[in-house]
């Protein structure tokens, strides 16, 4: 199967980057000059500290350069096929991140709110189980790889058809 996300012109919808992002800027870019967008849903994922007061922990995000972007683009293309979207944006950060920092942004814009809500939830659910990222939490006592949550598989499975 050819990656549908690799269509020229698609790439700007997906970014994998070390830098932080500004949700207001991203949202403004998605709706700029448009008067047919009624709803934008923005999901932001943040690094949580593992236990209370353990903000000395650092999260290290490993990914598979090139493949990660393509998998994210596939998710975007799938969302656009399922819902009438006027705009989509996915940004995922990599590298070391501290508690409270932003990890991921998923934006879905549509005429009506239900499509925007569903598409954003769908992209997050798929991203969790399909985009090649692996989290490692490092603190003073050592580092460990984060386990998958079964609930993530369940969440992704509800979109299967």
């Amino acid at each position: 199967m050819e990656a549908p996300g690799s269509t020229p012109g698609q790439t700007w919808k997906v970014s994998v980057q070390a830098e932080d992002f500004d949700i207001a800027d991203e949202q403004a870019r998605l709706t700029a000059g448009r008067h047919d967008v009624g709803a934008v849903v923005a999901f932001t994922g943040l690094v949580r500290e593992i236990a209370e007061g353990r903000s000395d922990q650092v999260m290290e995000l490993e990914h598979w350069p090139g493949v990660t972007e393509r998998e994210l683009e596939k998710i975007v293309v799938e969302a656009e096929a399922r819902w009438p979207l006027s705009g989509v944006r996915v940004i995922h950060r990599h590298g070391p991140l501290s508690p409270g920092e932003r990890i991921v942004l998923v934006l879905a814009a549509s005429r009506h709110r239900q499509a925007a809500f569903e598409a954003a939830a769908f992209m997050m659910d798929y991203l969790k189980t399909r985009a090649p990222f692996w989290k490692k939490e490092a603190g003073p006592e050592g580092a460990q790889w984060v386990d998958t949550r079964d609930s993530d598989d369940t969440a992704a499975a509800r979109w299967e058809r």
Partner: protein
Amino acid sequence: MQVLYFAWMRERIGHATEQVDPGEAATARELIELLKPRSEGHALAFENLKSVRCAVDQEMGDLDMPIAGAREVAFFPPMTGG
């Protein structure tokens, strides 16, 4: 054939890539049987196959995916992004 490892599989095995002759192995699962005896790290990495995912030529699949003619097979734990 190039074999890639990520996350704790890479750490257990001790390197991110290696060159492997797949011999008669027709699927990723059969390839794993060839890889396991290579070192203690390999054996440990492939200890529990429920926690092993794979991609053949950068296409995600399950362990029964055919690997005939593939240039690259990647092994990694379940993803934990987002």
